């Protein structure tokens, strides 16, 4: 029971291909003992939510640097609700201005990691907030 590993989907929506951050986070989560599924580039919100469902993940990390988060993230939240996946932890990382954060959180995002965030913060946040698994630790 205690060795159930946290499963995380790292996803890169939108047309942008800058994947340095997404891949570093994916590797850091793996090094921290989590199971990581990386979607690859240019995933639509539908593809991401579908992958989350298929892979039965505990958390989703979305990497966006293009400014498209205002359109894309609320859509992902809506689809997650449609699939009754509200208990999946949703994290956003990338270039997100401070003033956009309240709205993203209202839509269902648990935390936003801005430029300069460390992978340790991300790992710690997932461990502390992920559903069910927290009791195993």
């Amino acid at each position, binding site marked *: 029971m205690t060795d159930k590993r946290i499963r995380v989907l790292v996803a890169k929506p939108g047309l942008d291909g800058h994947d340095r951050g997404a891949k570093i986070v994916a590797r850091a989560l793996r090094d921290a003992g989590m199971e990581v599924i990386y979607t690859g580039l240019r995933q639509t919100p539908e593809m991401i939510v579908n992958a989350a469902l298929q892979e039965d993940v505990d958390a989703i990390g979305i990497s966006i640097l293009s*400014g498209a988060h205002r359109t894309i993230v609320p859509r992902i939240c809506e689809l997650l609700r449609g699939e009754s996946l509200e208990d999946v932890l949703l994290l956003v990382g990338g270039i997100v201005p401070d003033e956009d954060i309240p709205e993203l959180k209202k839509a269902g995002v648990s935390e936003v990691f801005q430029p300069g965030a460390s992978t340790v913060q991300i790992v710690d946040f997932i461990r502390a907030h992920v559903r069910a698994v927290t009791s195993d630790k």
Partner: protein
Amino acid sequence: MTDKMSDGLKTGLEREAGTSERQPSNAESRWQDAALKPTLEGAPERKEVFTTLSGVLVERLYTPSDLADFDYARDLGDPGEYPFTRGIHSTMYRGRVWTMRQFSGFGSPQDTNQRLHYLLKQGQTGLSIAFDLPTLMGYDSDHVLAEGEVGKCGVAVSSLADMETLLAGLPLEQVTTSMTINSPAAIIWAMYLAVAEKSGADLKKISGTTQNDILKEYIAQKEYIFPPKPSMRLVVDTIVYGAKEVPRWNPISISGYHIREAGSTAAQELAFTLRDGLEYVEWVMRGGMAVDEFAPRLSFFFNAHNDLFEEVAKYRAARRVWARVMRERLGAQNPRSWLCRFHTQTAGCSLTAQQPYNNVVRTTIQALAAVLGGTQSLHTNSLDEAFALPTEEAVTIALRTQQVIAHESGITNTVDPLAGSYFVEKLTRETEQACYRYFDKIDALGGMVAAIEKGFPQKEIHDAAYAYQQAVERKQAVIVGVNDFVTEEERPITILVIDENVARRQRQKLEQLRKQRDNSRVQAALEALGSAAATDANLMPYILESVRAYATLGEMCDVLRRVFGTYEEPAFR
């Protein structure tokens, strides 16, 4: 010992570069005993090992013994002469300072047109246009995948009509224009040429650059559409067409910038970029064009990061390596084919969201490196670019930074001022050697296209990026304001927000265009393009005809997607 200490920063081949044993001279040994040892006993140094930003070992002191077999004529040569280590011109900035070229593009074609006119008025000497993500990926502004992205990271251009608006009132025979476009470069270039034609400009006189470097897209920036081989064919077609029809145009800007931004080391940036360059040359030569017919118009684009000396060494090594491989490996005879002419941009990835005014200082150091390294043109980033595209005020400070360096610092008074520095010459040589070692590896994999398909450069860069991230998190690498010297109060700065109405207006404009144009001409042009794509004909004339008929970018790319297919990169594990 040294390896272990700096492991966090060292990757692959550079580890070897750092371990070369120095042979101190007698004089240096005397100094070590008499002066150094007592000092170290009393006060140890801050760290056991010092490295460059890329993790290359840096010695305490460089002396003549580091350059024991140094030969001025062979290793440097005079400026403007082979192997061009000291620069491609004999007078460098005494003759003319570099072109100050701020990359710009956002919102609608009208928005960007205004910014371009503003920059010219501020004393900028060349134009550089950024396109939005849908344009980079070959989608029109009204495509479903363009939602939320129109005008965000650059200007939206879906047809010749947009290009006409974008370039309105600009003197196309006088300014040089650089366009950052890759997968659909042939199409965007055709739009530029069509506007130039319409405005009465002579295609033999206009000059500028299309980035058109697809290999670094697969390696680093990942804005690819088609698989590597048809993509390379498009690049070859533009190079060949340019050599014949638009002889002053630089049909490609072979780019290390994005490779570095993806987290590579300086030596990886250099090696992968120059090896990409060789790949293009070989492909064009295989198509039947002689090297000296097109090589003089190849241009390069490098990053300028924080480590001043490492960067200067990189630019100097770039010129030397390119000259040698062009002459010795590819047999180029025309001295202009040997020249590594390059644009530089300061490192976007070095900018911090924390204490953003510090970014002006970082950018200044980076710009200094580019100038000390002999760049032909320069873009300086703005202080607010860790958040968004820059505001007009921020861009002005960035441009002024270049003007202060050019006109107040005195650096431009002499050619290659750092030459002869024991450290800089040694580092230049080490960078050059690391570059050749990567060439050997990539050659052994079957060339750059094959290496990319095997994921080799991608993996090397990811490993370097991860090592750097770990070094930052362990505070082995300090980023002021981020992992040290942190302040609680952040001063908010104004950032540029792109109006969502841009997307709506672009959609309306396209709807109108599709109604008003001669659709039978469009259909015929697109069919001809599709048929030609299935042969090995040069596609430029077919693309030009489609552009002139006001076929859209998305329509042309759809035709090519149908014929060429699309590319998915190997899975990341």
